[in-house]
């Protein structure tokens, strides 16, 4: 199978030594900016932990949720972060499968978003529990209580979906890091050397190892796609399975998946834009990468508008009294401001920026992506809260306002997410060195290593690996 030749605008014309130097710099050099950033993230995020501890000791009453709005921004944040997590694995898997050569500098920062956003998002169902410390009762294990979890409950499905996705995406992130950790190991000394020796898992770069890595990545790329789709479908079913007006909808599965990919791409573009400046990766993350991802974002923006239109139109046309109460509170009532902000952030602002070629620059896509991230959070909020405020019996209606605890924990998890990402970019080359170099050569890695070995007279019994690097 022929390796696609690289179009000139994606070609990264840098010598391998320079690549190594550029991409390993954050690992070996620590700037003062790094410490300042970490300090501020910890300082801003830390109150969230105390607020959560306080919530556990005092009771859920410190949160703004009340009857009948039993789920608030904890659940909105949960859906939001799980959505953001679709940045990486899904996009990177698709780009790998279609062998898009421009993906090489993008995949790792995308995959890292997935793992960390999932780790953060998975905290929320636990934070929101009335008795957080008993969250493990969702797991099927032989307990002294003699009962299994309820497999009919969408929350139980959530547990399986998220833990599968977290395991899969962690493997998907870690596998291609191994050769890069070996690169770090070979250049490090002292304490660092010992750490990276363990992390590199004895990688030597033999053809057999490359072959296995390639096969593993191909299997993972195929396997992770249905997992990613199922995760957000199941998250949507947390809502769709309950007979709550405006939740009980068949469109929710695909609608949530589309929204997740949409917010995921937006988060990826924002992260790439910041990394590009902070780590001086201008030569690696080029305008063409942002433009390409911008096009994907444009498609998802249109898809999002289509879904929300389809959802709203059918509800409005059906004209069922219970649903219309929630519907009008969003369109005209208390939530109208948030609704139209959401539409602006997800469509009216990003659409022209992304559709007009001149505006689809790095700055342009960064602005569009930032609004999309905000807009998609609002979308999650508008899915969770207004329907709960307007259930069937009007005398049970209520209003919800987030409390300091909920907002503090939300800020805390945001800081936690950024902190994890910053530490990751510090400890791991945020652009895959070997994949980048692989893109520069005509022959794939395994073949190169094999021919190099035969030239130097080393006997290797590995069969020739397939050529898809």
């Amino acid at each position, binding site marked *: 199978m022929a390796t696609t030749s690289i179009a000139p605008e994606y070609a990264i014309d840098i010598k391998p030594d320079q690549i190594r130097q550029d991409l390993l710099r954050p690992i070996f050099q620590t700037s003062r900016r790094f410490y300042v950033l970490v300090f501020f993230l910890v300082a801003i995020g830390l109150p969230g932990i105390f607020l959560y501890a306080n919530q556990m000791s*005092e*009771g*859920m*009453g410190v949160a703004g*949720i*009340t*009857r*009948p709005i*039993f*789920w608030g921004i904890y659940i909105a944040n949960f859906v939001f972060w799980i959505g953001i997590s679709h940045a990486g694995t899904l996009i990177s898997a698709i780009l790998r499968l279609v062998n898009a050569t421009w993906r090489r500098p993008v995949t790792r920062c995308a995959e890292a978003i997935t793992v960390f956003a999932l780790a953060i998002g998975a905290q929320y*169902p636990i934070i*929101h*529990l*009335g*008795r957080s410390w*008993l*969250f493990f*009762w*969702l797991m099927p294990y032989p307990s002294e*209580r003699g*009962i299994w*979890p*309820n497999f*009919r*409950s*969408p*929350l*139980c499905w959530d*547990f399986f979906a998220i833990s599968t996705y977290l395991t899969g995406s962690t493997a998907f992130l870690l596998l291609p890091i191994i050769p890069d950790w070996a690169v770090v190991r070979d250049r490090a000394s002292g304490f660092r050397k010992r750490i990276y020796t363990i992390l590199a898992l004895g990688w030597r770069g033999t053809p057999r190892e490359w072959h296995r890595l390639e096969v593993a990545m191909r299997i993972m790329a195929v396997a992770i796609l249905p997992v990613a789709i199922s995760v957000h479908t199941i998250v949507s079913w*947390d809502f769709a*399975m*309950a*007979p*709550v007006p405006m939740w009980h909808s068949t469109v929710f599965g695909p609608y949530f998946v589309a929204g997740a990919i949409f917010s995921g791409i937006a988060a990826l573009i924002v992260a790439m834009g910041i990394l590009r400046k902070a780590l001086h990766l201008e030569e690696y993350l080029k305008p063409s990468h942002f433009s390409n991802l911008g096009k994907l974002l444009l498609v998802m923006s249109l898809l999002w508008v289509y879904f929300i239109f389809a959802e709203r139109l059918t509800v409005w046309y059906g004209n069922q009294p219970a649903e219309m109460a929630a519907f009008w509170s969003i369109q005209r009532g208390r939530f109208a401001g948030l609704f139209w902000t959401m539409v602006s952030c997800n469509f009216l602002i990003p659409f022209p920026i992304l559709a007009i070629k001149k505006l689809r620059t790095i700055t342009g896509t960064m602005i569009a992506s930032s609004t999309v991230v905000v807009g998609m959070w609002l979308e999650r909020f508008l899915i969770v809260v207004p329907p*709960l405020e307007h*259930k*069937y*019996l009007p*005398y*049970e209606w*209520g209003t919800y306002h987030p409390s300091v605890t909920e907002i503090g924990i939300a800020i805390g998890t945001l800081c936690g997410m950024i902190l994890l990402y910053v530490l990751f970019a510090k400890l791991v080359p945020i652009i895959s060195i070997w994949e980048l170099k692989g893109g520069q050569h005509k022959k794939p890695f395994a073949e190169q290593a094999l021919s190099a070995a035969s030239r130097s007279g080393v006997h290797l019994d590995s069969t020739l690996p397939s050529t898809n690097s």
Partner: protein
Amino acid sequence: MAHRWAMVIDLDRCTGCETCMAACHAENNIATVDAKQAARGRAMHWIHVERYWEGEFPNVRARFQPVLCQQCDAAPCEPVCPTYAAYHNEDGLNAQVYNRCIGTRYCANACPYTARYFNWWNPVWDKPLQLQLNPDVSVREAGIMEKCTFCNQRIVATEIQAKAENREVQDGEVKPACVQSCPTTAMVFGDLDDPNSQVSRLARSMRATTLLSELGTNPKVIYLERESSHGND
């Protein structure tokens, strides 16, 4: 022998006196919250009386409807609970096992009647009110969902008594606190499986209806519509 406990509430007889609410709080050790929390919607009244106004002033009439857990046969709250805290017991009641509840509050969202109540705080009773707690009912801690049980402790106690005396439970022998305290006997409790029980006879009435029957939840709380509401009274 399993029963199918049900309640019939005659809306023509309800005066909206709210005695049932007070009796329910006392019987079931339901925590009270301060006025500020109550205004935020955190009061826990397993049974509460809804009030409707009909007509324009001065020709206004008040209508009352006590609302409690409807003890649905097809209860939306049950399948969504991940820990089986909400489950269907042998008598067809929607039981809530407090010790299993981890507080996902999913059941409360799924309940179309919003009949479930969450313990936002740990319960507090001003001294010496803690001495009047009912020893037959456990006190719930913060983070747990609770709701009307049809006074299951009374059902169990009556069944044990009947078994000890080697006889069946008599119709009208079990009386939940709300039924027992209702001054106008607007509420009747009994076994729907017994065709001759008072609830069975009333449930066959032309006036019998259920709340949100279009949702297919099959409630076991049956309301007898106001006869007067069909004409001038």
